[in-house]
């Protein structure tokens, strides 16, 4: 959220200095033996952590929403994101337009996917035990990911150089090596961040009212379908934003999905603010963890945080018993 309030590079740098200063004052730097980078890079890490946290929050929101309203655990959520990533790629390659214009296209496409998946697989067994729906969405995941892999190959892809915002290869966080992005691309990160957050706030406001409507009027099928579409669009939005700042593979959805599951439990099942708080925590662990710990050790830290929450506050940070 901080990133949206920092209008230009100068201010960001100033914030970075303040942050590092606070770090030093606490003696953390010497205690941990860390060598902090220049304030600019630190500020960029910070911005990126907020961005990633927003993405995780968005994905977790879709998961927790669909679970809270429909009692369906959607395993295909990550796969739908991958579809959105490649939709953005295809769209911006074909039209040569900025990928930002591709986002509505991806969201629309995912909406159609959501309806088709719901109609063909979930609606027929909506009254069956929960595992069955889970397994079905798993089947959807496998088919979608294989389809993407067959169509596009499993090599990492990146938005073409024709599209301005990702001219410099920003960050490949999967490999844990964050290259210094130009100020231009970090401005793009900011825009991606603020746009994703605004959209997700808008989306989180909608379903909550319908969710309460459902609890008063009883669950009806059209209502549920509407939520599934919403969920797919949320997933589509998150997926469509991801190509703006990192290269992607068909397998990327799984990684985001598993962390989003962690975010949901971390923040509290069914809690919308919890999804964002949890998302930000995971985002910060991932960005700073991959910068300082090396490899994919940050992922271990994420799971450790998850286990800690299981031990100490199993209902999640912001969740209460429903």
């Amino acid at each position: 959220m901080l990133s949206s309030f920092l209008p230009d590079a100068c201010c960001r740098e100033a914030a970075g200095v303040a942050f590092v200063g606070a770090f030093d004052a606490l003696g953390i730097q010497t205690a941990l033996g860390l060598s902090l980078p220049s304030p600019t890079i630190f500020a960029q890490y910070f911005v990126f952590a907020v961005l990633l946290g927003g993405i995780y929050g968005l994905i977790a929101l879709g998961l927790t929403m669909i679970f809270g309203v429909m009692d369906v655990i959607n395993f295909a959520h990550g796969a739908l994101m991958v579809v959105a990533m490649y939709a953005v790629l295809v769209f911006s390659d074909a039209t040569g337009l900025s990928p930002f214009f591709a986002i509505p296209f991806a969201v629309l496409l995912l909406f159609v996917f959501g309806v088709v998946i719901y109609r063909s697989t979930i609606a027929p067994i909506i009254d069956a035990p929960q595992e069955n729906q889970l397994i079905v969405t798993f089947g959807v995941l496998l088919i979608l990911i294989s389809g993407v892999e067959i169509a596009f190959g499993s090599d990492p892809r990146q938005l073409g150089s024709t599209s301005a915002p990702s001219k410099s290869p920003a960050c490949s966080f999967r490999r844990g090596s964050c290259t210094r992005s130009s100020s231009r691309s970090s401005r793009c990160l900011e825009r991606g961040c603020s746009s994703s957050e605004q959209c997700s706030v808008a989306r989180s406001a909608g379903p909550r009212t319908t969710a309460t409507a459902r609890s008063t009027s009883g669950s009806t099928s059209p209502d549920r379908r509407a939520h599934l579409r919403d969920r797919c669009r949320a997933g589509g939005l998150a997926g469509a934003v991801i190509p703006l700042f990192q290269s992607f593979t068909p397998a990327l959805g799984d990684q985001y999905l598993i962390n989003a599951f962690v975010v949901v439990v971390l923040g509290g099942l069914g809690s919308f603010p919890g999804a964002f708080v949890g998302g930000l925590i995971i985002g910060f662990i991932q960005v700073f963890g991959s910068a300082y710990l090396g490899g994919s050790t940050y992922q271990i830290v994420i799971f450790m945080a998850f286990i800690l929450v299981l031990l100490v506050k199993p209902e999640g940070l912001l969740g209460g018993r429903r």
Partner: protein
Amino acid sequence: MSNALSRAVERYGAFRDEWYALPALVAASLILLAAMPFLRQLALFGYAPLGWLSLNMLIITLIWATTAQAWNIMSGYTGQFSFGHAAFFGLGAYATIILTGTFGISPWIGMLLGSVLAGIYGLLIGALTFRYDLEGHYFALAATLAFAELLRYVFTNVPQLGGASGFFRPLAREYADGPGLAAFQFTGDLPYYYLILGFLTVVTVVSLAINRSQLGYYLFAIREREQAAAAIGVPTYRYKLLAVAVSAFFTAWPGAFWAMYFNTIRPTTVFDLLVNIEILLPAIVGGIGTVLGPIVGSFIVIPVSEFVRQSFSVPGLNNAVYGVILIAIVLYSPKGVVSWPSRFVELLRARTDLLDDDAA
């Protein structure tokens, strides 16, 4: 309908209701499996109908049949779905190869230690997830998956545990007199086949014993309605933990076998997300909570997938086949393939009744 058919159906229906039906069917299928290496060479008029089943494919099928059977003890019997059984599988594999390769200890001891380790890890997962009984399925899903993924990242990032490149299987003469049962390594594929069949037999017998015991009734009660089970005095928490521990213990066995059968193990081969699926898929396709289901299911899922993978050079297509089979089974026959004969019998009975009514 012909008289002979209806009589055969009646006889099958009567057999199905006998107490010895299940053990007899299990024994028959295990004997059939023991004869499989010879059956596949059998040629009818110069054409071998099972010739496309290579020994290697049969071994892989039995590995997943064994894991699915072990998974079934926890998830099928108690209804506590686990998406993280790759953790136990991988622990078995890594414990075996590290103890053998680094310390020169017999792989059998490594397998035993790996199984105990997996059982303890299972207890840890169970203790953390069952205690709070929050939103059961979602919680269990996220937690089991997270615990499996945790191990994957630990093994990937700790160089002492092999790192991302994993381990090579040591040569048999480095820690034993040479290939043989004591070394857990053989020169041909056939001994491997009978070894994994032995593992499958042990796990199946355990599963059958649990199915028929007091313990089994407790577990089924937990699956059907946990609160009711607790209300009549079943200590549900303790029995769920027991089921996880037993299941984890036996899941480590095929893991150890995997480590000694293939040349290398890496975090991506034994802890991968897809391993979690390959473990539970045969049980779901064959029939969740049944003793025969995992065996029957594995012989449907794995050969088809391997066949697709080897015949078409399209990477990822075999996963799509998994997906299609999964969706089809859950949508049209959620009780699995093993329920088909019973459904067939009932269908025929209903038709015979209808015909009798018409005649009367």
